Structures are given as structure tokens and as C-alpha cells.
């Protein structure tokens, strides 16, 4: 078992930050003192365990399916096959149409195709948002941790304000109020939905990534090799991006992976709240929403369960990998 993640991203980020800056986080649990000596001495490089390979396998399979989705021997995600409506998964009975292992949805579309194309949308949005958060949050954190002073307090204050609004509500309000404007600009409502969600969720990812980057930058910027680089006359930008950043990246990556998991869930949650991507284009979230009525009347529970299962497995795999990375690179965390 890798070390446990805290249950929310926000606490995770705060705990990591506190751990890196050596503040007491929680009573009774000792925070190891050997700060960030990773890679210097006595680190046993653990091999990836079975679970991690399983996680990589699932994510790899998903990636392959997403990339080669058009080559799959299924009908398109919006194509209706007559007689396929409400077909259960793995159906063997004589009146079943073969070749649709995951069954059909309520109007006869192939569930496999819907889920794969849904993954395309959901993961495109999730990854895009993480990249937005990674770039902006990472830059802010790096600058704040390196230059300190008034700039730092300003940036930290900004991140705090972002953190002080519940993430889902922030994403929700941005999506609702921005979507139509983005649609006016790009034209297609489908693309507008994707872009708005990516942007809104990206904003949500900024503070956690920003905080962890700042905290780690603070520690690394005081190391001898940074002083050495400065003594040699290296410019600030060079020190920041060439000396400090490479050391901070593992921590950022671990948090970014956790953020990805959270954002995949958030996409579905926004759909449930009625603010996600609007139907014909499938996402894991709106597949769930479309299928919900047929879960409560018991006619086709597989629609909701397949999409939920995809979300669950993906989040589980990402969390597991995130933990493995943290363990491997000894990213400090308070064991909250």
C-alpha cells in the first residue's frame, strides 16, 4: 500500500505545504524532520508494485481506446441501432444483438462507443484543466517562492481567495456565466462547452498546484547549489527554471495527478448539476445523467453503472499512481 492521500485535494495541498515548510500540521503525528533529502542518500528506489502496473495498464488501455476510437468495430456514439435499446451488457439471450458487449442505451446507441467517446471528452477536459492549472499555478508558485517579499504575499493571498470558495461552486459559476459568451466567440456549442469547462476547472486546479509549488520552491531555493549558481552570476530566470523547477516538478506532478482525479469527478458532478456538456456529445457525466431515470425505474441500471464504473476505475488508478510517485520521489506529506 502506498501512503494514503488526504481525502480532498485542498487538504492535501495544505498538508503538503505545511509539511514542506515544517509547520506542525496535526497533533500527535510526527512530521519527519529530514526535509527534502530525496535522491541524496539512503533512498531505496522501490520497484513499482503489482497494483501500480494494474493502474498503468488500465490508463494505457483507456488511452489506446480513446486515440483509436474511430477504428473500433462499434457504431458511432450517436448512431442508433434498431433493437439495441435497453439491451443489457453481456447479453446471451437469442433476442440480443451480438457485438455490443456493454449493451445499449435507452435509444439504442452502443454503450461501448458512448463510453469511449465519453472518455475522450471527459479526459480531454480533465487533462486540459490540469495543464491550465499546472502552467498558471506552477508559475505563480515558483515566482512567489523564489522572489518572496511583497510579491509572495500578494500571490499567496490570491491563491487563498481562490481556495476560500468551494471548488465545485467556483467551477459551476464560471461555467454557467461564461458558456454563452464563449459560444458566441467559437460558434459551436459543443466546443464552447469543452473550452469553458476546461478553463473553469483549470482555475479550480490553480491554487492547490500553486501552493505546493511555492512550498517546495521555498525549500529548494535555499539549497547550496542555488547559491552556487547565483555566485556564478546566473540570472534569476535561469535559476528558477533550470535549478529549482526540476526539483519541484515531482511534487507538482503528484499533486497534478490528484487534481486530475478530482477534476474528472468534478466534470461528472457539474453534469449532474446541469452545467456540464449538453447531450448529444457524450461525457461520462452526461451519460450518467441521461441514464439516471432508468436506474430508478430499474429498466436499465447498466447505463449509470458502466459510466460510474469507468469514473471510479480511472480515479482509483490515478490516485494509486499519484501515491506511487509521491512515495518514489519522497514528496513530503503530513500523514493526515
Amino acid at each position: 500500500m502506498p501512503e494514503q492521500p488526504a481525502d480532498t485535494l485542498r487538504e492535501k495541498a495544505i498538508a503538503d505545504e505545511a509539511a514542506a515548510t515544517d509547520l506542525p500540521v496535526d497533533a500527535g503525528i510526527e512530521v519527519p524532520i529530514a526535509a527534502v533529502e530525496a535522491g541524496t542518500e539512503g533512498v531505496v528506489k522501490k520497484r513499482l508494485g503489482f497494483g501500480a502496473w494494474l493502474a498503468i495498464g488500465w490508463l494505457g488501455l483507456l488511452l489506446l481506446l480513446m486515440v483509436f476510437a474511430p477504428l473500433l468495430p462499434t457504431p458511432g456514439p450517436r448512431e442508433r441501432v434498431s433493437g439495441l435499446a435497453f439491451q443489457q451488457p453481456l447479453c446471451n439471450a437469442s433476442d440480443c444483438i451480438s457485438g455490443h458487449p456493454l449493451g445499449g442505451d435507452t435509444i439504442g446507441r452502443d454503450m461501448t462507443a458512448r463510453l469511449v467517446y465519453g472518455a475522450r471528452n471527459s479526459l480531454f477536459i480533465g487533462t486540459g484543466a490540469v495543464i491550465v492549472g499546472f502552467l498558471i499555478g506552477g508559475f505563480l508558485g515558483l515566482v512567489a517562492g523564489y522572489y518572496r517579499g511583497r510579491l509572495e504575499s500578494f500571490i499567496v493571498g490570491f491563491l487563498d481567495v481562490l481556495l476560500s470558495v468551494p471548488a465545485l461552486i467556483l467551477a459551476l459559476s464560471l461555467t454557467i456565466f461564461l458558456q454563452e459568451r464563449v459560444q458566441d466567440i467559437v460558434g459551436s456549442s459543443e466546443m464552447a462547452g469543452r473550452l469553458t469547462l476546461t478553463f473553469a476547472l483549470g482555475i479550480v486546479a490553480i491554487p492547490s498546484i500553486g501552493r505546493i509549488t511555492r512550498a517546495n520552491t521555498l525549500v529548494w531555493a535555499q539549497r547550496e547549489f542555488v547559491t552556487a549558481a547565483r555566485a556564478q552570476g546566473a540570472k534569476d530566470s535561469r535559476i528558477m527554471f533550470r535549478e529549482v523547477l526540476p526539483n519541484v516538478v515531482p511534487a507538482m506532478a503528484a499533486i497534478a495527478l490528484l487534481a486530475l482525479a478530482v477534476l474528472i469527478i468534478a466534470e461528472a458532478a457539474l453534469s449532474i448539476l446541469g452545467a456540464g456538456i449538453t447531450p448529444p456529445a457524450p461525457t461520462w457525466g452526461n451519460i450518467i445523467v441521461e441514464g439516471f431515470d432508468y436506474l430508478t425505474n430499474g429498466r436499465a441500471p447498466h447505463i449509470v453503472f458502466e459510466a460510474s464504473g469507468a469514473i471510479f476505475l480511472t480515479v482509483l488508478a490515478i490516485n494509486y499512481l499519484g501515491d506511487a510517485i509521491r512515495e518514489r520521489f519522497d514528496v513530503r506529506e503530513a500523514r493526515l
Partner: protein
Amino acid sequence: MGEEARHRLLVWALVAIGVVGLVALVVVAPTGVTVAAVAALIAVAVVAFAGWRRLLQVVVVLVLVTFFVSVLIRLLPGDPTDAILGFSTPEQRADLRQELGLDDNIFSQYWDFLNDFLRGDTNYYQSSGQRAEGTPVWDRLGNALPVSLLLMFYAQVIALVIAIPLGILTAYRAGSRLDKSVNTGAFALIALPNFVLAYLLIYYLAVRRDFFPTQGYVPFGENASEHFRSLFLPALSLSAGLIAAYMRLLRSDMIQTLQEDFITMARSKGLTTRRILLRHALRPSSFTLLTVAAINLGALVGGVVVIEVIFQLPGVGLLLFQAINAKQYPALQTMIGIIAIVYVLANVVVDVLYSVLDPRIRHARAAG
């Protein structure tokens, strides 16, 4: 009375006042007086335990958040009144523009928004351009807020009830097969989004069997047992992640406690395992647990909103959902504002509680 004792007294007094305030909010529904009283209480507590700086910080955050909420409506493309009113005469639009302060500059719009917001004078609009009669947002929020708070409370109770025994058991048998399987389960539970758990519970306990209703809410006053039946599944779905988090926390905390000298001492005195675990080991560990439980109140906000929509519980989340679907932008602004403010304040209270409860942080602050 020593410093420590006086401190403890103060803490309990504040907690008592806080509980009374919360109950007042739930029972009486938010009125100007209760809201002002709670706000004053929070301000006093913040100043007493965290200092003026923190209070200033909170005020700045609140101003920024409300400002953000007040300009949201300007993000709508073209003329925002188009989106709010379906069909309308130019006069109606002009009225609405004026009412929302869209013609003013951004700061006086903020001022207007704040005024309406604090007086509770924000409304739903009908597509005919009229204010929907008799349904100010605050009235609906007043009815919805208690449902959401109750749901969060029940989720916490369920989480603690399940997590505490599991935590004790796994700490006592750390490293055993039981410990490992419970830990793996907890890891999976953390990755289980609460809506996914909700679907599983709905299907297997409410659709296939008829143990619980699939949706709907029964107030406590109407029928107590139905009330608990209607809220059990939503609360359980919400508590999943919490159970895992609490269990792990208690486990790692108790493993440490169990290695302390006073435990060996108790054991050498011949006390029963049960007594040692419950009386000697659990008590020092429970402080951390309770603090984290308080912290998680804030983290529940997003989950509550989603769960309420799934189970059609008339809380703030369902209100939000309905407003989104009806494109009631001004009402949405108010709700987002309320949720954000409650969240900010809850976090401040937790922060203060945290520094009060954890002596290490308290002394670090006093020293530095």
C-alpha cells in the same frame, strides 16, 4: 484558575454558543438578527484566538468573493437581460437593467448588489419580465439551508460511528490481514465519488429492495422515522470518503498512542484490553479526529449539492440546480454568494478551533 483551565473554559463556552447559534439558525431560519449575531460571534472568536490580522484577512476575502459574485452577471454575452427575460418589452428590460445596476459602473453595481443581498431583497424573475411574486431567494434559502445542514450533520455522525470502531480495531491489530484488507477498502473508498455510491445504494436498497425511498424528503416534525429513512441513503453516500479518511487518521494516531509508556503502564496494571483501548488510547487520539471532522465540514459542501440533486432533497443544492435549469441568473448569484460566504466562515471557525484545540499551534502562535 490556571491559564490552561481558563482557556479550556473559554473554548467550551464558545463551542456552546456556536452550537446554540447553529440550532437557532436551523430552527428559527436565518433572519437579520440571527445572522448578525452569528457574524458578531465569529468576529469576536477570530479576534480572540487568531488576532485582528486574521479578521482583516477574512473581511478582505469576503469582499473579494462577493465582488466576484456581483460581476458574474456581466460575463453573460450581449445584453444580460436577454438571458434573464425571454420575451419582454424594451421598458421591462430597461427596468431590469436599472434594478441590476447594469448601467452603472462596476463599483456602484457592487454596492447595489451588496445592499440587496444583505437585505435579502433578491428575486426570481419570470420570463414575462415580472418579478416572480412571493418568492424572494432568501425565503427559499431559509427553508433549504436547514435541510443541507442536517444532511451534513448526519453524514458526519455516520462517518464517525463507522470509522471509530474500524480505526481502533485496525490500530490494535496493525499489520494483520484484517488491517490490510480494511486499508485497501479505505483506499478504494477514497476513489469512490459520492454520487457513484449514491447510485449503487439507490439501485440495490431502494429500487431492487424497498428498504428506503429513492428520493424525497420528510421533515422531522412530520414523521421522525420516515425522516431518517429519507435521509439515510444520502447521508451514507456523503460519508463514504469521510469514513476512509477518519479511519486512517485514527488508526495512525492510535498506533502511536499505543506505543506510549502510559499504555504499557496500564497493561502492566492488568487492565483489560477493552478498557485500555477505549479509555486510555482513544481519548488522546479523538481530539485530532474531531478537529479533522470539523475541517471536513467545508469539504462536504460540493458533495452535498450533488447528493441533494440526486435524491431530490429540498436543500440549497436542489435550489441551485433548479435555478441553473431555469436560467435564473440573479437568483443564482445570490445562492453562489451565500454558499461561498458560509464556506469562508466555516473555514475560519475551523481554523480558530484548530488553533484552540491543538496546543502546539497555539503556543507556536503565541511565541511567534
